[in-house]
């Protein structure tokens, strides 16, 4: 009799809880997904200038987001570059021309680097332009060489150089490496899928 | 010759030069002697004379009961004046027999010599017991007890402790030089009593003359050897000396006989032949009166019970800056508040230390420098023990070997924070004893 009461109370509690939560979930899940979609879409439009819409193309499990111009042409392509930073995973969306020789724009989707140091890759509150670091990658030509970084000197844009953040060399270096690696890997893959 | 030693230890300034070259002198008979009935650990002896009695030099005046005990004799002839409590150099106020000298020093009997080779071992032991011989290094343990190890523990090596590692003291050194024949005769007697196969005489290398002399004298005896040991404190601590000479470790809580060894002090060995051959009891000993506070440091042969005052006066008195009077050596000796205390059988030295030497600097907190750990001859961690005792963690303190402390004072000597480590460990030992009883 006693144990029956225990079972009933626990069952009812969990049941009610489960039912309540499933209702809540059916309300919340679409919103959460919509938000994530919005963030991604925002990022895609950010890195791929002058497009009207985009379409997803999947080659061997890698997603490419192809930008479609108002004329209906595939003009550029974006993909994700993921790797380890100093203390967190970095997710970067890289937008390039379709031949993958020139970077158009990059967007840092996710980072959790050391506050005040590594986070400067996303937001440098002390600088005139807080987003200066990622913007350095814009319009770099990487047909012949990989991106390289320099410290405490003026980077040579022609040679695909960017300037590392003082005090956050590792985070800077990681961003460069992640992008280089993703471009190398995806260039052939994408071309083969054309 | 190879110099042996033990692990760790320290080397305080020796100050032996003050009295090392001074020949042993007899001092004039004192007017009064105060003979303590508590010469050693264990129950005090019971007086068998009463005030007003006439006594002769060497007459038995108090007797002890039980196994660990020894006899007390009149050290001069005269009249028993008083039996009362007087301050003793070991810091208590035991009962003492005051004898007023008649100035004649009339012996109880003629002390005729016999050939000890003819005596049985039992008889020799008996004579040593009757003569009231105790360890003269300081602890004053009855010698006859030490010479009667249980049959289960055979003794193979007898060690003469000639280290005299305490700074200032030179009495043993002088005795080795001046009484070497007696020392060797005593050694042979004790070896026979113990049935030991060999004797090692351990002498610190700062007494080279003694080492050479004894080496020469023992050259023909293969079973007696002289072994120089490093000049290091506390080289004369029994367990450390055994470790240095034989590489045998006396187990914690055990005695030297557990590893087949008996150790005797130089003074003790020298006292033995007289007792065995003539039955004359122990009524005098050699005391080093020294220190910067003594005008003319000397080594003196004095009657047991002579007040320190007489010794000091014989040595020219005290300098005005004398700050401390100590019974024994500076490392383990006991500070006295008066110079009226008498010499007891364990008094190896009377030190008068001046302010600049004894000045205790301010105590700091422990900075964990580890000096005490590197010094402790028993391998303890004094700083930790003290902290455990301070916080009443007696079980842990005991487990870490507090009871093994030999109270040599090396830790407190080296401590840069001037923490009285050994004093606190002594308190801890008492607390642990109380707890266990």
């Amino acid at each position: 009799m006693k144990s029956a009461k225990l079972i009933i109370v626990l069952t009812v509690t969990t049941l009610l809880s489960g039912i309540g939560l499933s209702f809540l979930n059916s309300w919340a899940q679409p919103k959460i997904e919509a938000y994530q979609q919005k963030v991604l879409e925002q990022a895609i439009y950010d890195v791929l200038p002058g497009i009207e819409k985009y379409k997803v193309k999947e080659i061997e499990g890698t997603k490419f987001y192809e930008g479609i111009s108002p004329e209906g042409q595939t003009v550029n392509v974006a993909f994700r570059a993921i790797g380890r930073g100093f203390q967190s995973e970095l997710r970067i969306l890289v937008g390039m021309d379709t031949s993958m020789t020139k970077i158009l724009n990059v967007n840092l989707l996710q980072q959790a680097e050391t506050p005040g140091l590594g986070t400067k890759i996303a937001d440098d509150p002390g600088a005139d332009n807080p987003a200066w670091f990622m913007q350095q990658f814009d319009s770099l030509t990487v047909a012949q060489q990989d991106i390289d970084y320099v410290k405490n000197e003026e980077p040579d844009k022609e040679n695909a150089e960017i300037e590392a953040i003082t005090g956050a060399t590792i985070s800077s270096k990681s961003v460069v490496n992640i992008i280089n690696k993703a471009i190398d890997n995806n260039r052939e893959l994408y071309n083969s899928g054309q | 010759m190879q110099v042996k030693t033990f692990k760790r230890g320290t080397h305080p300034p020796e100050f032996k030069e003050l009295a090392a070259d001074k020949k042993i002198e007899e001092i004039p008979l004192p007017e009064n002697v105060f003979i303590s009935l508590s010469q050693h650990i264990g129950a005090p002896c019971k007086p068998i004379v009463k005030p007003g009695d006439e006594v002769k030099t060497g007459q038995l005046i108090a007797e002890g009961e039980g196994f660990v005990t020894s006899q007390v004799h009149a050290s001069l002839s005269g009249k028993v004046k008083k039996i009362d409590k007087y301050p003793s150099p070991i810091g208590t106020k035991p009962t003492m027999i005051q004898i007023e000298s008649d100035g004649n020093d009339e012996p109880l009997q003629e002390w005729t010599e016999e050939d000890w080779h003819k005596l049985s071992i039992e008889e020799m032991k008996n004579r040593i017991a009757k003569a009231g011989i105790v360890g003269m290094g300081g602890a004053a343990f009855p010698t006859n007890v030490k010479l009667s190890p249980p049959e289960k523990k055979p003794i193979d090596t007898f060690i003469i402790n000639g280290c005299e590692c305490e700074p200032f003291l030179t009495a043993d050194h002088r005795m080795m030089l001046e009484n070497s024949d007696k020392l060797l005769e005593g050694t042979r007697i004790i070896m026979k009593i113990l049935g030991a196969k060999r004797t090692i005489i351990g002498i610190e290398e700062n007494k080279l003359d003694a080492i050479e002399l004894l080496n020469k004298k023992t050259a023909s005896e293969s079973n007696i050897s002289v072994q120089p040991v490093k000049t290091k404190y506390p080289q004369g601590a029994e367990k450390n000396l055994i470790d240095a000479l034989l590489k045998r470790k006396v187990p914690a809580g055990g005695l030297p006989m557990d590893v087949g060894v008996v150790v005797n002090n130089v003074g003790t060995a020298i006292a033995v032949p007289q007792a065995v051959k003539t039955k004359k009891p122990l009524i005098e000993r050699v005391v080093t009166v020294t220190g910067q506070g003594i005008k003319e440091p000397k080594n003196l042969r004095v009657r047991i019970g002579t007040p320190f005052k007489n010794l000091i006066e014989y040595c020219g008195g005290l300098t005005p800056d004398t700050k401390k009077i100590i019974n024994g050596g500076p490392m383990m000796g006991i500070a006295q508040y008066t110079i009226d205390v008498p010499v007891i059988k364990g008094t190896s030295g009377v030190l008068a230390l001046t302010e600049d030497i004894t000045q205790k600097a301010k105590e700091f907190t422990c900075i964990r420098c580890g000096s005490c750990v590197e010094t402790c001859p028993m391998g303890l961690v004094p700083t930790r023990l003290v902290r455990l005792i301070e916080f009443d963690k007696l079980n842990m303190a005991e487990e870490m070997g507090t009871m093994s402390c030999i109270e040599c004072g090396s830790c407190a000597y080296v401590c840069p924070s001037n923490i009285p480590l050994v004093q606190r460990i002594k308190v801890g030992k008492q607390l642990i004893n109380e707890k266990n009883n």
Partner: protein
Amino acid sequence: MAKKNSEEQRFTLSSSPHLSKEDDVNKIMNTVIMALVPAIAFSVYHFGWDSLLTIMVAAGSCLATEYLIKKMRKREVTDTSSLLTGILLAMTLPPGLGIGFVMLGSVFAIAIGKEIFGGLGYNIFNPALLGRAFLQASFPVKMTTWEAPQHLAMDAKSFATPLGGYKFGESVIQNAGDYIDGLIMGNVGGCIGETSAIAIILGGVFILVKKYADWRIPVSYLGTVFVLGGIFWLISPANYPDPIFHLFSGGLMIGAFFMATDMVTSPVTPLGSWIFGIGAGVIVILIRLFGGLPEGVMYSIIFMNAFVPLIDRYTRPKYFGEVKK
């Protein structure tokens, strides 16, 4: 004759021993400070009078902090250890760090690093290193901007250290000549007091000889770095620097001789000292070769400091005649 009476009273009673070695805490501290003089002198030559100013500000702030806290706790300042802390802290700071930062680090070192635990003898971590760790964590950019030594005419305002150079692929040290002149003599960038190995070793050997530092710690610490660094170098000379470079670069020398040997925060047992030094050495190599930072000396010592009570506990020597139960 009144003197006769008083004579009996004037003897002091105290427990044995009645002798004591002349060392005391202040003498130790002052000797260690003396031993730092060569390194201080070199830093002045190397980085200019600013470095002396930094040292003086740090030492002054440490003394002042100690005085204020002791006053709050209604105690007296009895030792000069905070002076030493201040000097050591300054030695580990980059030249040209602002006075305000130096003061902040000093206050932190004494207040949080030492006094909060109860003062000298009770602190767990080396106070100077804790002060530096605080500054490093708070102002990482300032703390890793190296001013060029003043007598080396350089255009660049900031200057890479040998270790930073290795980590980020711009080697400062390339040939044998650089070793002697740069690493051993100290003509490289770095913290105020760390660049000249020779000046530090001079002082370090002095305190070792004086026995104011446990020789086992620098020996095991440097030895581990050398051996472990050497093993990696032998495995892959292209990827890892050679052991000599490890030994003489960064703060290893000053760390091994003056920081790790801090009596309060290192083990008291001889075996413990070996373990402490080896542990710290392993951490230095791990951080330098595989970590995110160019230098790991500070963290290696602070990290091992935390283990000292444990090390002491398990490395208690066997006492004389102890029978294992």
